[in-house]
C-alpha cells in the first residue's frame, strides 16, 4: 500500500515503522554493489566508455586528416615494423600505418569508431521505443490486441536479418533517403525493422509477469490507467531486462554495419571532413581485405579494434545480467 501511495504521487505514509537494523538499500544500489565486485565487467565497462570517449573526441585526438591521401606514404605498416611484406617500413608519423591511398589508418579507425558508436546506439534507441511499447501493450491488454500484435511480431521475427538489411541497402541505398547522413538513417530504419520483434516478445513476457503482481492490482484499484501502469510499474520493473538486451544489441548492430561494409554495400562514408561520417569500420574491412597480401597489418589492426569492443560489450552484458538478477547466475 505504501508503495502504491507513493507512486501515485499522494502523501507518503508517515506512520511509525519498525526499525530494521541494516540500512535499506534500493534494488539498484544492490545491483551496483554486485557489479562493483565483478572485475571483468568493470574492465569491460571501462573499455566501452573509452571507445565512446574516442568517438566523442574523434576530431580532437585523430593525429591526421582521415581522408587526406599522403602520396608516397601509401600501404605503410605500423611504425614498429621495420620491413613489411611489401618491403616498406613504418614511419613514426603514421602510428598504425596507412591504407592503399596513403590515408592514416589510426585516424580512419578513430573516425570509424565515431560512426560505429552512433550506428550501435541510435538504432537501439529506436528499437527500444518500438519493441517495449508493442510488448507492454500486448502483455497488458491481452486478448485480441495481444493476439494480433503477436501474429505481426511472429512474421517480423522470422525475417532473415542480414538478408533484409542487404536487400534494403541494395534497393534504397542509392535513393535520396539512402543518402541521408551517409546511409546512417537507412541503417537505423533497417535495424528497426528487423530487430524490434525480439525485444517485444521479451517485453511481453515481462509485462505478463508484472501485471499479476500485487502493486499493479493496488494501483488499478485506485483507478490507475493502463498508461500509468506501463510507465510507473511495468517499465521500471523491466529496466534491468532492457539494459541487458541493449548491451547485447549494440555490438550486434556494430557488427552488422561491418558486414554490410565488407560486402561493399552499406554506409557511404563522406569525402568531406565537414561531414560527420567520414569513415566506417565496414569500409575499413573492405579496404583492408583487398590489400591483405601486401599490408596484412591493416586487416589485423581493424580486426583487433572491433574484436576488443564486441568482447567488452558481451562481458559487460553478462556482468549487468548477473548484477541485476543474481538468481540467474550460473
Amino acid at each position, binding site marked *: 500500500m505504501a508503495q502504491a501511495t507513493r507512486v501515485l504521487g499522494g502523501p507518503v505514509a508517515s506512520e511509525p515503522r519498525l526499525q530494521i537494523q541494516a540500512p535499506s538499500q534500493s534494488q539498484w544500489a544492490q545491483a551496483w554493489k554486485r557489479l562493483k565486485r565483478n572485475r571483468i565487467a568493470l574492465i569491460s565497462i571501462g573499455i566501452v566508455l573509452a571507445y565512446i570517449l574516442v568517438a566523442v573526441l574523434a576530431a580532437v585526438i585523430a593525429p591526421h586528416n582521415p581522408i587526406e591521401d599522403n602520396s608516397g606514404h601509401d600501404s605503410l605498416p605500423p611504425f614498429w615494423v621495420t620491413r613489411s*611484406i611489401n618491403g616498406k617500413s613504418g614511419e613514426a608519423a603514421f602510428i598504425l600505418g596507412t591504407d592503399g591511398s596513403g590515408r592514416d589508418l589510426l585516424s580512419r579507425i578513430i573516425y570509424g569508431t565515431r560512426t560505429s558508436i552512433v550506428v550501435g546506439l541510435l538504432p537501439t534507441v529506436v528499437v527500444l521505443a518500438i519493441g517495449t511499447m508493442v510488448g507492454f501493450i500486448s502483455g497488458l491488454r491481452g486478448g485480441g490486441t495481444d493476439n494480433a500484435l503477436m*501474429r505481426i511480431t*511472429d*512474421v517480423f521475427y*522470422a*525475417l*532473415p*536479418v*542480414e*538478408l*533484409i538489411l*542487404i*536487400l*534494403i541497402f*541494395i*534497393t*534504397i541505398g*542509392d*535513393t535520396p533517403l539512402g543518402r541521408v547522413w551517409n546511409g546512417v538513417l537507412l541503417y537505423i530504419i533497417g535495424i528497426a525493422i528487423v530487430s524490434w520483434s525480439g525485444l517485444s516478445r521479451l517485453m511481453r513476457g515481462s509485462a505478463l509477469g508484472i501485471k499479476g503482481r500485487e502493486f499493479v492490482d493496488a494501483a488499478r484499484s485506485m483507478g490507475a490507467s493502463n498508461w500509468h501502469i506501463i510507465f510507473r510499474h511495468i517499465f521500471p520493473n523491466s529496466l534491468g531486462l532492457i539494459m541487458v538486451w541493449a548491451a547485447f544489441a549494440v*555490438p550486434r548492430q556494430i*557488427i552488422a554495419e*561491418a*558486414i554490410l561494409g*565488407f*560486402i*561493399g*554495400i552499406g554506409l557511404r562514408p563522406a569525402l568531406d571532413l565537414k561531414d560527420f561520417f567520414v569513415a566506417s569500420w565496414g569500409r575499413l*574491412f573492405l579496404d583492408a*581485405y583487398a590489400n*591483405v*597480401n601486401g599490408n*596484412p597489418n591493416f*586487416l*589485423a589492426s581493424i*580486426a583487433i579494434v*572491433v*574484436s576488443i569492443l*564486441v*568482447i567488452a*560489450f*558481451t*562481458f559487460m552484458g*553478462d556482468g549487468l545480467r548477473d548484477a541485476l538478477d543474481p538468481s540467474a547466475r*550460473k
Partner: protein
Amino acid sequence: MAGLIVRRFFYTIPVLLIISIVTFGLMHYAPGGPWDRDTDAGKQIDAKTQTLLNQQFGLDKPIWRQYTGYIFGDFNGDNGSFRCGAICGNLGPSYRQRGRMVQDILFKPFDEDKGFIDSKFGYSLRLGLLALIMAIVVGIPAGVISALKHNSWIDLTITFVTNVGISVPSFVAGFFAILVLAVGLGVIPVRQQSWDGLSPWLLPAAVFSFGTMASFARLTRASILEVMKQDYVRTARAKGAWESSVIWRHMLRNALIPVITTLGPAMAALITGSIVMEQVFGIPGVGTDFIRSIGNRDYSMIMGTTLFYALLIVIANLSVDILYGVADPRIRVE
C-alpha cells in the same frame, strides 16, 4: 502432434508472402532497371530493344501481375501457354547471365558428371552443414563437461573461450584465421584453388561454426546446471542408477530441450551467414554470386536467392518447432 505441424505450417505462409512482397516492392522501388547499366560495348541499350526485352521478361505488365506471375505463374510461355512461377521452383531467367535460369545458376552442377553437391548452392550447403555438425559435436559436449566440472579450471577455460566465441563475429574470426595461418605461417593459401574433397572446407567451416559452437556450449552448460538441481536427478542417484545413466538419460535428455529451440536461429545464422563467409574465404557458392548480382543489378537473381534463403530459414524454424514437440511432450498438448 499433427495439429501442431499443420498449425506451424500455416504460420509460414504469411511470412513467405510478406518477404516476397517486400522483396518485389523494393526491387521496383529501386532506381534504375535491369537494362540500365548494360554497357558491354560502352553504350546504352536503345529504347526499341528495351521494349522488346521488357515484353520478353513480362516487365510491360502491371506490377501486381508481374508479382503474381513471378510467384504463381502466368500465360507467357510459348504461344501463350501457362508457365508456372516460383512455387514450382521456377525463379525466372537471370537478367544478366543471358539464357540461364536463376534456379540453374543456383542448383545445376558445375560439370555434367558431377552431382548436386558440386553446384553453387551445394557449396554453400557444404559449408553450412559442416559448420552445424562441428558446432553440435564440439559445442554440446564442451557445455556438458563445463557443467559437470563446475568452477574447475576446465570450466573457467571453456566459459572464457565461449564468451569470446559468442562476441567475435565469424567473419572477423575468419580474418584472424587468414592472418595467422595464411599470411603469417603460410600453412594454407589465402585463396584455396580447389574445393574438391573435404580438407579445404575444414578451416572455413571451423571458423564459421565458432560462434554457434560457443552459444551451444554456453546454453548446454546453463541448462545442465539447472537440471542437476532437479529432484528427479537426485531420485535417480538415490535409487542407485549408474552415473552415466543419470547423465545421459536423466540430465542430458531434459537439458537439451532449450538447446533445440536455438537450433532454428542457429541454422538461420549459418544459412545467411554463409554469404559473408564465402566472401572471406573466396568460396564460389551462392553468396559470392549473390553479391555479384547485387553489383550488376541482376534483379531476378537477387529476388530468387532472397526467396530461396527465406524459404530455407522458414523450413529450418518449422522443423525445429516440430523437433521441439517431439522432445518435449508438454508442447504437444498445448
